């Protein structure tokens, strides 16, 4: 599936909830399904700054596509990063770089995760894109 197809899928999944607690239950489900990051990859380098919770994110290049693993000590953050992993996993680097993440606003996360100054969600996306950029230039 393309990035946008996955985004649309997520939007649809969330559309059935009109209560935030249900959304969170759903996000927590995602968290539980997130492929565990290798313990050795929980390094300071892989730690994303600026969240109230800790987020580790690692990426590998497998067959020309990026494969992400991640973890967080907070379950909602973990669910959110799981959503990102679901979207970006195994996508070509160039696609990742050019993505507009409209699903965030659509499912209401932009408003709800932006309060913290150094926006956790934003930092995660930045990190993913910087991986994509790095691999992209490697390929050339």
């Amino acid at each position, binding site marked *: 599936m393309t990035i946008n197809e996955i985004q649309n899928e997520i939007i649809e999944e969330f559309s059935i909830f009109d209560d*935030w*607690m249900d959304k*969170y*239950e759903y996000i*927590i489900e995602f968290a539980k399904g997130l492929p565990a990051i290798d313990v050795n990859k929980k390094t300071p380098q892989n730690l994303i700054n600026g*969240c*109230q*919770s*800790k987020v580790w994110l690692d990426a590998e290049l497998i067959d020309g596509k990026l494969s992400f693993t991640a973890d967080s*000590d*907070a*379950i*909602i*953050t973990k669910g959110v990063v799981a959503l990102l992993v679901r979207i970006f996993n195994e996508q070509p680097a160039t696609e990742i770089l050019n993505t507009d993440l409209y699903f965030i606003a659509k499912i209401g996360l932009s408003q*709800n995760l932006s309060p913290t100054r150094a926006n956790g969600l934003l930092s995660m996306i930045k990190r993913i894109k910087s991986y994509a950029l790095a691999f992209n230039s490697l390929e050339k």
Partner: protein
Amino acid sequence: MQKSIDEIRKDFPILNQKVYGKPLVYLDNGATSQKPLLVINAEKEIYETINSNIHRGVHFLSGEMTNAYENARTTIQKFINAKFSEEIIFTKGATDSINLVAFSFGEQFVNEGDEIIVTEMEHHANIVPWQMLCQRKKAILKVLPISDEGELIISKLDNLITSKTRLLAATHTSNVLGTINPVKEIIEKAHKQNVPVLIDGSQAILHSKIDVIDLNADFYVFSGHKMYAPTGIGILYGKKELLEKIPPYQGGGDMVDNVSFEKTTYAELPFKFEAGTSNFVGAVALAKASEYIESIGFEFIKKQETELLNYATEKMQTVKGLKIYGTSKKKCSIISFLVENIHAYDMGLMLDKMGIAVRTGSHCAQPLMKRFGIEGTIRASFSFYNTKDEIDSLIQGIERIRKMFND
């Protein structure tokens, strides 16, 4: 006659709203308080009637505004029972006040090898300026530790203070633990060894009457926005003889007597420390806030807030796996807690969606978090305008989330 809570809540229009369709339960008062109409309208009225730059003006509006500003100073003087009005310096806030002292006192009195003492429960605002000073002057920062209950271990003070100690900086009330420190006793001990004391009153000024003469504090600082006044204004109280001895902090208009490229002389107190156009509207609003507080009365405030604190503490103790950080017998209406297996951030985000505003994280007190071996807490902080119903909502919210996680 004493206003009822319902009447009081009408003074704070922001409280009567819904977020996510749920009634707002504002329990983040430790971060900033809401403002009564009296304060909000005071600012508006000034801008519509007498706004004008102060002090040097010869015209009517300038005179009115100057009088309002200087009267605000006197109001704050009385509010904290300072001896002289010129001991009241208007600043941007508590952080600004502490930085002022760290710089000016530091320039005058702190040299290589000297020592500054802070406590383990300080807000970053009462740590970092001293660290920066120590770095600049090659001085040493020493730390008074706390007990597991979250109380200062005063007995260690005598050993901590040496002939090299130049200043002790301690908070009156912890913004995380709620602990009310025995600052009068601390000051007495420090003074016995000729060490002046700065008290961070940010979390104390709104809960009970502060009397700087009785405390015998050398410096006392607080922010307006935490005591029902607007943002951008705060107070540095300093003993006159000390303020006179230390050099100015910022340079600019209003703080000078005579300026020439060869030699500049500085104005008298309090102006020496108020460089540039002061936040004169904020100052008047701050004085109004102090009047509002006094109209409610500290007796009532104390009674109401203690009731809320006790009620919430009791209820929380019934929640499985909930641990309260800060169990001193002397506390203001702040409760920090964690629930087993639940990250503070998760709890905060979810409570928010139920309309309940709490703060989560390290509360600008990372060394304190380290002391307890945690990353952060959830903090509920109550004002006299909060109600037991709101605490019930909080407890229900916590229970609901706990079940989501632990079932």
